[in-house]
């Protein structure tokens, strides 16, 4: 159990770093920490987990496996029509032809935004997300507000992300209810003719690959056109 002193410390720490945890978790943090430590110790002593392997998994997601992979994929799709076609045909196969992106298992599907259609991805039942190309999902993606509202009122959700779409645009929401995983190919911003893949990748935001954002424009703005 957390003592008053623990709570006071946690509070000042959170305040200083400008982020907070949901659901009053802070007061139970010490209890949770102890439970996690206990579970890991017992599982390790009994040979079910290797703590060095856990370190390696954490390191992989903190350094190698993140939205930078998806950014490279989207930049190539913008720059290379043949790759774009291959990505839409079978995204798992297409991504695995890129040597600089970590390998992807089966069932990755790419869907493209057009002038007529905007795509947005959610998992209403849990938090399915294309880990291999986007890393681990942000807290909002796993939160009850997003999971409940994305299928019911995606335009309202999009407006909270600063994205306003014309009424005539189709909004297509993909609920990831099985082991297929979706990545959105956002529209390539205007004014980027002749840009290299490296330059283009800088314009691809994580949210634009989930569908709650658009790609950045060359002038640094992210608003809908």
């Amino acid at each position: 159990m957390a003592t008053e002193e623990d709570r006071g410390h946690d509070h000042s720490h959170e305040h200083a770093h400008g982020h907070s945890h949901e659901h009053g978790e802070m007061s139970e943090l010490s209890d949770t920490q102890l439970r996690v430590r206990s579970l890991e110790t017992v599982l390790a002593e009994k040979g079910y987990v290797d703590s060095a392997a856990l370190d390696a998994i954490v390191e992989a997601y903190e350094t190698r496996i993140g939205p930078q992979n998806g950014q490279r994929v989207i930049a190539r799709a913008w720059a290379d029509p043949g790759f774009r076609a291959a990505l839409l045909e079978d995204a798992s196969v297409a991504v695995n032809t890129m040597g600089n992106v970590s390998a992807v298992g089966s069932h990755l599907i790419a869907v493209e935004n057009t002038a007529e259609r905007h795509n947005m991805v959610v998992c209403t039942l849990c938090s399915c997300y294309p880990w291999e190309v986007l890393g681990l999902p942000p807290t909002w993606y796993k939160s009850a507000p997003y999971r409940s509202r994305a299928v019911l009122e995606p335009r309202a959700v999009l407006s909270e992300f600063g994205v306003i779409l014309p009424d005539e645009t189709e909004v297509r929401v993909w609920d990831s209810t099985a082991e297929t995983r979706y990545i959105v190919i956002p529209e390539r911003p205007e004014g980027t003719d002749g840009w290299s893949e490296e330059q283009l990748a800088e314009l691809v935001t994580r949210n634009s690959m989930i569908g709650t954002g658009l790609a950045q424009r060359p002038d640094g703005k992210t608003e809908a056109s």
Partner: protein
Amino acid sequence: MSNTIHDMGGMHGFGPVKEEANEPVFHTKWESRVYAMNRAMGPLRLWTIDEGRAAQEALHPAVYTNASYYQRWLLGLEARALQHGLVTKEELASGKAIEANDRPNRIFKAEDAAGLTRSSFDRDPQGEPVFKAGDRVRTLNINPPGHTRLPRYARDKIGEVEAVRGCHVFPDSVANGKGDDPQWLYTVVFDGQTLWGPDAEPGLKVSIEAFEPYIEAV
């Protein structure tokens, strides 16, 4: 369980979506350990991804909503480790292994983290797919007591098959201890008004991934 709090699509009352600026991959060390333990235990094949989901769905709705995301993963992992007899309550309380055990045949090692690709859920089909792209179908009105991946908002609704996604492990079977029972998987798309009535947002279409036993011809 199927008709419980995890099935959130279409619910009201949770408030706005709040994005955290410059969010780190993990907020605390314990979150990273919980995630890594779950990933490392998967390849031991002691349980399946759907059994893992079912363990979280079995949490009381009040516990589910009050726990943070990684607290739910912790509670789900503890529950499975206990159910499968890997650990005892006494061991978790003391933080020490007490009882001897047979070591697992394989263990996730640090070098395995080089790949970290997801495993495939494709399985050999038992027959040809019944449906094809363009077919109109109705989802079944089912309320099973066990695990399912057909969300409530999309039950007993008419939609259109948009794509056949291959033949996959059937969650409703495997999570309930009845084996893979592979089934064809389809993307089925619904009009917003079909799901939400005349006040649906304009131009809305929502798709789910529906296993063949979830749908029937219209």
